[in-house]
């Protein structure tokens, strides 16, 4: 096991971190399959409203590769298909029956997996709706099945600070985990399993599979950060990654032949004890919580994700729902207060003098200004980018220069936007630039 030394990241401690306990919440009447959190997808609907679907039947596929299907996480009748502006598919909502009726695939035992042809495994994953678990760098698009990745990175911690803990997801899942690693070995010779060092001790038997530990500091467990710190050549830039919960799902699916519907997620609210939640894929947010105040933001991650509303459903790639206070309040002389309770990576608040756990809020704390070259973004970027220079290249539409400066190494952790005193939306600028470059290229 190797200890990765990553020096830059966010060292602030937050209130409301989830506890390791697990409670069960059953979903209410509807289950949804969201298309909003699937990067780059151009969905093509395969079903109509009022149609009855089984658990595992395809609801839509990707126009770019129609063999990659996205399947229903429940059995029931399609209640409605929600479109956004310009008829963009947002989600398919299913009113579900009490009993699951599965679309059955071939169940493959661990010993048979080894002899199973790779092509068959790929088509089963694509048909079963789980090929999307494999994401390919640099843009983290759905992996290209014809490509042999130089390595596959499994990060046991999720992409946000508040994502479920690995020890909770892995509880009694040792076999599935090992089975999952066997699946990965069919695709690449080099499997990286990385975990936040804080969680390493709690993993028990799993420890022997860990190849790297990373410091307990967001976002050092992000696959993009791990890749940047271990890559040796530019071929490694086309590696794949998969998250832990998806690896377990994949293993359950191939070994049982049924679409796995369980999902472990976290729900964090201010001033409350936040347990992990065992629920179902595509659960409606209504089922998880009753009310959100107007002075709160509900997101699927503090740094990543999107703003969600209670009537929508949790996406395939989302496993944390965060309620963050967001009081749009103007503070008298706010810019010069000593700030004992105001977290900052800079040394301009007294809160830096003592080790405090902070309650964050979802407001901007200032107004947008021009970049003044202060290098706060550079000091926090885990992948050693010079975000201010990259941003200037992107804004000047000099994409070549931006790429040379390492734009594609950006893991979109959001820390540059987090720290910018001029409140420039660096992460949005980078992610748009990567998207448009990637779409042009493909």
């Amino acid at each position, binding site marked *: 096991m190797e200890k990765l030394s990553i020096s830059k990241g966010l060292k602030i401690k937050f209130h409301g971190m989830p506890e390791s306990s697990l409670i069960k919440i059953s979903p209410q009447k509807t289950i949804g399959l969201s298309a909003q959190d699937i990067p780059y997808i151009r969905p093509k609907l395969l079903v109509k409203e009022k149609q009855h679907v089984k658990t595992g039947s395809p609801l839509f596929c990707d126009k770019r590769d129609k063999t990659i299907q996205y399947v229903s996480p429940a059995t029931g009748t399609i209640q409605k298909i929600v479109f956004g502006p310009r008829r963009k598919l947002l989600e398919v909502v299913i009113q579900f029956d009490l009993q699951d009726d599965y679309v059955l695939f071939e169940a493959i035992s661990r010993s048979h997996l080894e002899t199973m042809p790779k092509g068959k495994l790929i088509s089963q994953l694509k048909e079963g709706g789980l090929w999307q678990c494999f994401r390919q760098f640099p843009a983290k698009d759905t992996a290209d099945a014809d490509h042999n990745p130089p390595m596959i990175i499994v990060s046991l911690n999720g992409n946000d600070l508040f994502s479920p803990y690995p020890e909770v997801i892995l509880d009694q899942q040792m076999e599935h985990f090992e089975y999952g690693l066997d699946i990965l070995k069919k695709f690449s010779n080099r499997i990286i399993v990385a975990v936040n060092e804080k969680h390493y001790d709690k993993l028990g038997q799993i420890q022997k599979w860990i190849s790297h530990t990373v410091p307990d500091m967001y976002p050092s467990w992000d696959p993009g950060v791990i890749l940047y710190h271990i*890559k*040796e050549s*530019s071929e490694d*830039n086309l590696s794949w990654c998969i998250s832990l919960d998806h690896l377990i799902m994949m293993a359950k699916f191939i070994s049982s032949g049924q679409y796995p519907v369980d999902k472990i997620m976290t729900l964090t609210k201010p001033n409350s004890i936040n347990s992990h939640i065992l629920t179902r894929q595509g659960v409606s947010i209504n089922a998880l919580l009753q009310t959100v105040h107007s002075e709160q*933001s509900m*997101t699927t*991650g*503090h*740094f*990543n994700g*999107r*703003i969600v509303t209670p009537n929508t459903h949790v996406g395939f790639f989302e496993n944390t729902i965060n309620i*963050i206070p967001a009081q*749009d*309040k*103007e*503070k*008298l*002389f*706010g*810019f010069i207060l000593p*700030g004992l309770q105001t*977290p*900052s*990576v*800079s*040394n*301009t*608040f007294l809160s830096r003098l003592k080790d405090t756990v902070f309650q*964050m*809020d*979802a*407001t*901007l*704390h*200032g*107004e947008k*200004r*021009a970049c003044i*070259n*202060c*290098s*706060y973004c*550079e000091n926090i970027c885990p992948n*050693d980018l*010079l975000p201010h*220079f990259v941003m200037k290249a992107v804004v000047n539409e000099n994409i070549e220069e931006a*790429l*040379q*400066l*390492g734009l*594609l*190494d950006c893991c979109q952790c959001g820390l540059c*936007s987090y*720290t*910018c*005193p*001029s*409140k420039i939306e660096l*992460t949005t600028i980078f992610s748009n630039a990567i998207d448009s470059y990637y779409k042009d290229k493909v």
Partner: protein
Amino acid sequence: MHPLKKIFDQLEPHFTGTGKYKAIEPLFDATKTLFFFPSPKTTVRPFIRDFLDLKRYMSFVILALLPVLIFGIYNTGFQSGLAQGERLGLISSFLMGAWYVLPIIIVSYGVGFFWEILFAVIRKHKISEGFLVTGLLFPLTLPATIPLWQVAIGISFGVVIGKEVFGGTGRNILNPALTARAFLFFSYPVSMSGNVWVAVQNNIDGITGATALSINGASQGTSIISALTEKGFDLFSLFWGLIPGSIGETSAICCLLGAIFLMITGIANYRIIIGGILGLFVTSILFYIISDSYYTWAHAGPFYHLCAGGFLFGISFMATDPVSAPGTNPGRWIYGFCIGFFTIILRVVNPAFVEGVMLAILFMNVFAPLLDHMVIQYKLSKRIPNV
């Protein structure tokens, strides 16, 4: 609701939308946000944000300048008293100093903000806090006797030509406050030159008092140190700063206090300040060793060079302006070091200028993008390409 907030809310319709004073909306906005710090909800990821913003950032520079400002006001009054042959007390020195210094600051802020507001209105953006610093830095680099119309012209040049023609804050190549000073320095050398005029109340023209840097020991045939000591510029007074000179530059200790505050809070990059002091030390020691001109500043040694003139003021407050300094850390070390180096070169070798720090900083401002370019090229050569 706060009563002040009520007033702003009542005034707001006049300045926004179809209001009567829509044209000066940026001014209203700047005043309002000075009192009531805005914090709108985030709409894009990351949803949480750091509490530091540019208003606080710039206010910290003002805080760091306070010791320099207060001492500068006191010293101006004190020197003016000395020139009249009396030793003024603390309060009267302070009042006398304020009489000279405050008008300069008011003119600098007033005229500068006029240009800032004008450009903000035309370009339809908010007023940047950067000028709060520029508007205070500039007066502190001037002698107290400067005519106010020159202050107005100087700050106009600094803001318009030094900053706004490049696109405003964040896009300027040169430090606007130093650009303003350089403009006055070359346009009106009489009011700006090394022989600073000590402000005297009853005498419009003032009387001349040499600054430390214009002294040499050649006429008396004594060493530079004894010549300095004889004129009252021993290391002790240079350090504390009760000597004639520009308003803000005389006291080394006040500049150091500001510099330490800025370095601890991380507002100024310590690499520039430490690099600059290192550059100054190395170069002045080299001159001390190799030079045989016993009477001149070449032989003054590092501590005299550090405390005399405007070096500490310049390196702490001017060179650390993040916009005109390099944006990479190795670049900042080189930049700082070169400022120290060129300051000594100008002071010692160039007979045209007794003080070199202003020109050294402006010169390195021009080279900052080149330093960045070199550092980035080097860094990229170490990176595994991803294109």
